[in-house]
């Protein structure tokens, strides 16, 4: 995997009018001063609650909306001055359904091929390859309207891949899918990467998804990237394993605290009368060594648990809110509608094309 840069964002910022009225001077800063690089071949996820600015960022990077300030180079071209060059080199799977409901699935793939300058023969061959590899055989001649949610989503991915782009953007790819369809979709995305080294850039508000599949997680909140690392490192540095040790008596628990404290620089404290707890990044090694050290001091550990952290713990450590709470707050605050509303399939997931409710003025 080379280190060649495929996305370079510099000071990318998007403000929307707070009210859809023209005279309103109040603005909402949906994305603030985004600076980041993505190397060719990376699999990066924007993780954050609804309204964090993930989709707005993606919509700027894919030339759908112009930034208020700042810019980005995507596959070697500037999104502001060379949007057509960017479009020709990226694949995009939006939050909604890419296929037109009145079209047949295969027809949409062929149209997409024509849009990207493929010959009819090349488009046919490519469409049939994608239909087979994305398990759409048998549904290809149905109209998009007749497809199930999972089939629609796989067609969306096929449409995004039709012209074999070196960079694929996916906006909430698995929202609205059942767990099986979600796993199936991810299998396809991961296969694609291992076979072709396609760079994948996605947004998600599913913790497990970012944790399990993304190699690099950019945590977004209120228009800003507040952390950017691999999931294991984010968890180790910002959250840590929660270790709990149980004892037969309160005095054992009290005597155990200084013993365990010698092994770690994280604070060890009493949890209940007979248990003590510590949150540490190296919990998997700390736990056995703590048990051994306590044994040596003739303090018997009766129960021991180590709970590894989730990205939600990371988000909590960073913002003081859990991802779920943050999402709910933002959902209720969202008012301005800047684009088409989502269809039924995605109704549980409001567009975060809409700006977050935090005003730029209030933040300063």
């Amino acid at each position: 995997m080379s280190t060649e840069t495929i996305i370079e964002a510099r000071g990318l910022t998007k403000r929307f009018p707070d009210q859809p009225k023209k005279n309103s001077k109040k603005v909402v800063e949906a994305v603030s001063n985004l600076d980041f690089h993505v190397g060719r071949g990376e699999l990066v996820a924007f993780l954050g609650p609804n309204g964090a600015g993930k989709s707005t960022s993606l919509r700027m990077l894919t030339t759908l909306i112009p930034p208020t300030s700042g810019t980005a180079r995507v596959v070697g071209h500037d999104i502001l001055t060379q949007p057509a060059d960017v479009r020709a080199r990226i694949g995009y799977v939006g939050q909604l359904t890419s296929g037109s409901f009145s079209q047949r699935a295969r027809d949409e793939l062929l149209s997409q091929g024509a849009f990207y300058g493929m010959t009819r023969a090349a488009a046919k061959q490519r469409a049939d390859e994608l239909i087979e590899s994305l398990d759409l055989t048998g549904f290809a001649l149905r109209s998009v309207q007749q497809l199930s949610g999972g089939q629609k989503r796989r067609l969306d991915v096929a449409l995004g891949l039709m012209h074999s782009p070196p960079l694929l953007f996916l906006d909430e790819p698995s929202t609205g899918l059942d767990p099986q369809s979600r796993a199936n979709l991810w299998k396809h995305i991961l296969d694609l990467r291992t076979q072709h080294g396609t760079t994948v850039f996605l947004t998600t508000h599913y913790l497990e998804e970012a944790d399990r599949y993304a190699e690099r997680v950019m945590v977004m909140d209120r228009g800003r990237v507040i952390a950017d690392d691999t999931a294991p490192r984010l968890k180790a540095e910002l959250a840590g394993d929660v270790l709990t040790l149980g004892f037969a008596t309160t005095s054992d628990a009290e005597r155990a605290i200084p013993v365990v404290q010698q092994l770690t620089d994280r604070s060890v404290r009493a949890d209940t009368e007979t248990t003590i707890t510590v949150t540490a990044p190296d919990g998997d090694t700390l736990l056995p060594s703590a048990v051994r050290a306590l044994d040596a001091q003739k303090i018997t550990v009766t129960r021991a648990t180590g709970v590894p952290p989730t990205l939600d713990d990371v988000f909590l450590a960073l913002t003081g809110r859990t991802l779920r709470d943050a999402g709910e707050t933002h959902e209720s605050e969202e008012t301005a509608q800047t684009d088409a509303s989502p269809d039924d399939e995605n109704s549980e997931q409001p567009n975060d094309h809409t700006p977050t409710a935090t005003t730029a003025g209030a933040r300063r």
Partner: protein
Amino acid sequence: MTIQTNHHDTAVRENAARDTWNVLTRELKPVARDPFTLIFSLVQPLIFLGLFAPLLIGQSGMPIGETLQWFVPGVLVMIVLFGTGATGSNLQYEMMTGSHERTLVAPLARSSLLVGRALKEIAPIAVQALIIVLIAWPFGFAIHWGGLVIGLALLAVFGVGLGSLSYTLALGTKDREWLFWGVQQTLIFPLLILSGMLLPLDDSPAWMQAIATVNPVNWVVQAERALLAGNLGDTAVLWGWTSAIVLAAIGLVIGVRAMRKSS
């Protein structure tokens, strides 16, 4: 199963003519696959032909053929007014379900997304107009083939204009379907009545006649009557073409502008 990859680093460039053709052929696919949708959307004009024409015949006391010669050209314009005037709702649906967004990320000239759609309207208009003419024929409607061909061409230009305006309305109203239909219905019926399509405006009050004078639909209807009667040199034909061309030009310009702003 492997997916072949040949990264297109000689990536495609936007080309308005080729992109328009690609958008046009894509739009025609559902129509070509299911041509019965065209016949189904003819229900409204057929009701006017079947239930309104007899009333006209009874009222005017003129022979059936003569009444149809007056009424059928109006029905052809009605097809455009009701069918093409509503076509923006298709785009609105695609904006709401997501496929419009996909085409905006594709390397297509923005103008092609509007012009290709507007040109597609010609196909249903031509097919539907021919069906109406062929239905009226056995009842005494005389077909002047030269006039019919020019009349269909005029309808096509008028349809491209009205279709563009309908798409513009969709792009402007975004996800507010009620607004699209509210505006569309508010405009369609005055345009219909003030075009003398259903009843002659000869006995109407002066203010109605004044409005009809600036109603392009009125001029297109009068031109169609002249053309379908074989009077190719009638001045109404000139006014009809002028109205249709101006409408098409305005529609395409503001439509393309709205498409450029679309996100």
